[in-house]
């Protein structure tokens, strides 16, 4: 068993910042992460990080833009905290040596970004995330923060009182990928989940292969509600074979989208007569898919993004990295042929419900970064707002976990039966329950309320995971994870994608149910305990099933069109009824869906919903 004051799960931007925050608050801190920190997905972010740093800009404007961008589904206390803390936290990164792009006077550069009323996106070339990640890792090394890398966290050690709000978290169970050893990590003060995105729930995503929603699934099964899971951002220009992102810059410079008949469809089919290719991400994504669905896609799969007419000189000057991407990852030369593109899953606005201090309803359990939902992005995330979220809420979660007083949070967490409203939408199949490996049962939080001693809780959780792994390894026939994963991903991309219909979402829920049932027969073929990625991916697949189900359930119950969530039967934003978060709790193995009102009252003002027209 390993023991520390604060255990941070994940070494991406949020995890590193949480660990540094906890360390600065005096805690003995360790990071447990399935990838070495510098391999984390944060490294892929390109565009930049928003913070009101300059005269003429202030946190109130940043908060206002973010609330509007969220389509009024963000919580004001979270959004205001983001906007208030971001400037100082970005300056801290600079003090740590982050190589930001610079102005002539030596100050850090800022550029305009979609939906921002001021050019407040600070950046480091087109590799902001890479530099953010490496700069913070360097600082973690400087402070001697212990990193257990290539340790895959399989579960949380949580007590099992019947009411999740009474439970507490005492550590995590880790699997040492190199040796196959399963060990407990005891956290004296708190556990911070910073496990990042869930893009692998879809078969076409800009997210890394490691983005399997582990933190969301583990917290959910331990009794933390998942919030607003239906809100998934899709990016219109990703490369078809890999999902690698082609930045909006290409369309900004004048790149044109064509269908297989050579028609400039954004204008010719009237998707966005005024803006053409420069319409917002969701509009362009829908237009592209309509072309493909109506038989005008190239190879029935994608459309063409053409930049040849811009000329070699201009392309080399402004879009050189796009040439590299198209060439290295698609084998296409953007100077002589158009590039294939299609919409790809890009970002999860929802996640583990937390308050402004990163705290969940379970005592000692925190979450930050893309796996969390403190509710700053609501229905739609503005470009450049995810990276400040990592550092602002990562730091807060780390500090609070280490015992620092950050003041009372305004956001409430956890289910309280007297006030919460439940859904009345019928599900086409029974969700949840099945899909837990038969020999093992539910590893934590079964509601019996018997084990409360920290060491005993951890030991029990470790034992359950050892049993689960033995079971998966001993079984020598059945279904393999790759088969289930690919079936799940295809169903999500087909039916819970950019376009959503009631019929489609119900079909997806049925497939998810089938995946659960097949998963009961899953087995690991690789007999080795050394670097067994087969085993790791099998466990991840279980997490993906749970996460995908919450996305589909959320999409089914939200009968309106808001932010990134488009429903064929409901083509308007319904503020009267839907200024509320979709919450999903795992109650003894079965999801229940309920709602919590959005908080629009800020410190000084109340944000009045306005039409979002860009």
């Amino acid at each position, binding site marked *: 068993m390993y023991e520390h004051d604060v255990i941070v799960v994940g070494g991406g931007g949020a995890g590193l910042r949480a660990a540094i925050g906890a360390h600065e608050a005096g805690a003995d801190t360790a990071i447990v992460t399935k*990838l*070495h920190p*510098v*391999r*984390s*997905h944060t*490294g*892929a972010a390109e565009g930049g990080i928003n913070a009101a*740093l300059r005269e003429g800009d202030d946190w109130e404007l940043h908060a206002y833009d973010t609330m509007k961008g969220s389509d009024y589904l963000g919580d004001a206390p979270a959004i205001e905290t983001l906007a208030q803390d971001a400037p100082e936290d970005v*300056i801290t990164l*600079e*003090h*740590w*040596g982050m*190589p*930001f*792009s*610079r102005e*002539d*006077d*030596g*100050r*850090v550069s800022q550029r305009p970004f979609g939906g921002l009323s001021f050019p407040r996106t600070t950046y480091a070339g087109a*590799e902001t995330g*890479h*530099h953010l990640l490496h*700069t913070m890792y360097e*600082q973690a*090394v*400087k402070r001697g923060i212990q990193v257990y890398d290539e340790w895959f966290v399989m579960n949380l050690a949580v007590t099992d009182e019947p009411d999740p709000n009474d439970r507490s978290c005492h550590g995590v169970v880790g699997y040492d990928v*190199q040796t196959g050893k399963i060990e407990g990590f005891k956290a004296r003060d708190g556990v911070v989940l910073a496990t990042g995105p869930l893009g692998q729930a879809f078969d076409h995503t800009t997210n*890394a*292969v*490691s983005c399997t929603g582990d933190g969301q699934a583990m917290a959910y099964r331990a009794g933390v509600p998942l919030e607003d899971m239906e809100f998934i951002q899709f990016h219109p220009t990703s490369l078809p*074979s*890999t*999902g*690698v*992102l082609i930045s909006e810059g290409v369309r900004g410079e004048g790149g044109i989208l064509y269908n297989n008949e050579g028609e400039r469809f954004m204008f010719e089919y009237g998707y966005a007569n005024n803006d053409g290719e420069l319409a917002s991400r969701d509009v362009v994504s829908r237009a592209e898919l309509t072309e493909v669905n109506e038989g005008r896609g190239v190879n029935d799969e994608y459309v063409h993004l053409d930049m040849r007419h811009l000329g070699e000189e201009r392309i080399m*000057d402004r879009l*050189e990295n796009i040439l*590299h*991407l198209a*060439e*290295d*990852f698609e*084998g296409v*030369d953007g100077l002589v042929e158009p590039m294939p593109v299609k919409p790809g899953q890009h970002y999860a606005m929802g996640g583990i419900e937390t308050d402004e201090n990163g705290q969940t309803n379970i005592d000692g359990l925190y979450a930050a970064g893309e796996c969390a939902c403190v509710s700053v992005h609501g229905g739609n995330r503005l470009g450049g707002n995810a990276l400040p979220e990592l550092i602002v809420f990562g730091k807060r979660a780390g500090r609070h976990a280490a015992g620092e007083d950050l003041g009372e949070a305004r956001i409430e967490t956890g289910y309280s039966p007297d006030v919460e409203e439940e859904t009345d939408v019928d599900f086409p199949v029974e969700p949840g329950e099945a899909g837990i490996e038969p020999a093992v049962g539910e590893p934590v939080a079964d509601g019996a309320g018997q084990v409360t001693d920290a060491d005993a809780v951890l030991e029990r959780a470790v034992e359950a995971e050892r049993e689960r792994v033995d079971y998966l390894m001993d079984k020598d026939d059945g279904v*393999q*994870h*790759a088969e289930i994963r690919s079936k799940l991903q295809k169903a999500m991309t087909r039916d819970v994608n950019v376009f959503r219909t009631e019929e489609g979402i119900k079909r997806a829920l049925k497939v998810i149910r089938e995946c659960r049932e097949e998963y009961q027969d899953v087995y*690991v*073929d*690789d*007999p*080795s305990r*050394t*670097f*067994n*990625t087969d085993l790791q991916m099998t466990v991840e697949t279980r997490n993906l099933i749970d996460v995908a189900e919450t996305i589909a359930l959320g999409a089914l119950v939200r009968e309106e069109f808001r932010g990134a969530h488009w429903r064929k039967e409901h083509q308007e934003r319904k503020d009267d009824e839907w200024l509320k978060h979709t919450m999903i709790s795992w109650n003894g193995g079965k999801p229940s869906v309920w709602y919590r009102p959005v908080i629009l009252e800020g410190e000084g003002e109340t944000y009045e919903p306005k039409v979002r027209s860009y």
Partner: protein
Amino acid sequence: MSAQQQEPEEPETQEVPEDQEMSGLASPQQERLQRKQESKAQRERAADEGDLDGDAVHLKVFRYDPEVADKQEPRFDDFHVPFERGMTVLDALIYARDEFDSSLTFRHSCRQAICGSDAFFVNGRQRLGCKTQISELDQPVRVEPLPHQEVVKDLVVDMDHFYDQMHAVEPYFQSEDLPEGEEQRQSRENREKVKMSTRCIWCGACMSSCNIAAGDNQYLGPAAINKAYRFAMDEREEEEIKEHRLRIVEQEHGVWRCQTQFSCTEVCPKDIPLTEHIQELKREAVKKNLKFW
């Protein structure tokens, strides 16, 4: 703009004659354009010979597992994977694993040359699997773990030594004298100067390609020295700390071991002019020493 254009000119110095070899080196820009011409020619050839789609790619993949009886003796396994346009070495490996043998083990994550986890030895050269188009390679495609590193299993090597060397140069900003509530100033020129050095993704390709590192286990190696360069050349870092860091890279197993063979620069997937950076640190060290002696 090309990286080469942005590298500020360095006056040639008498003390370090190896420097002259630098002028014979093609810029990353030129190399890239050349590679592009080649891949275009390749594509045209492929088009002439009929579509590659549907053909099988022949992979020969190194296998080893200390725990599994028939894998204890290293061997190569053959996989035949259907080719698709745009397919990379990583895509082919994933296909082989998911469809044929789930125990086939390799690191990978981002699929876009930024996480640095899938450096392999492909057809005799260190390359990122995700950044290497199958169509550019001769068949069969041989995929092996990075040479000179201990193999954990199949294509997975032990990176601990690499990380230790990276950590040895104290790879973090140490300045204490910081302006209150605002950023430090840094000139555009200075940022350009350190820019390429900050692109390292810790893939280990350079270290694996280096003959000196192979023979001298304590040699800091190109990546760590480049990391030191990143801080030594940053004008925001304090002078004293820079000197301290220079002393680290100047020690017995530091910069002077480099024999300017350029293999690191050739394989670096991020086009970092590693050899040039090592040379520049040698010059700095000489300059500093002249001052002290």
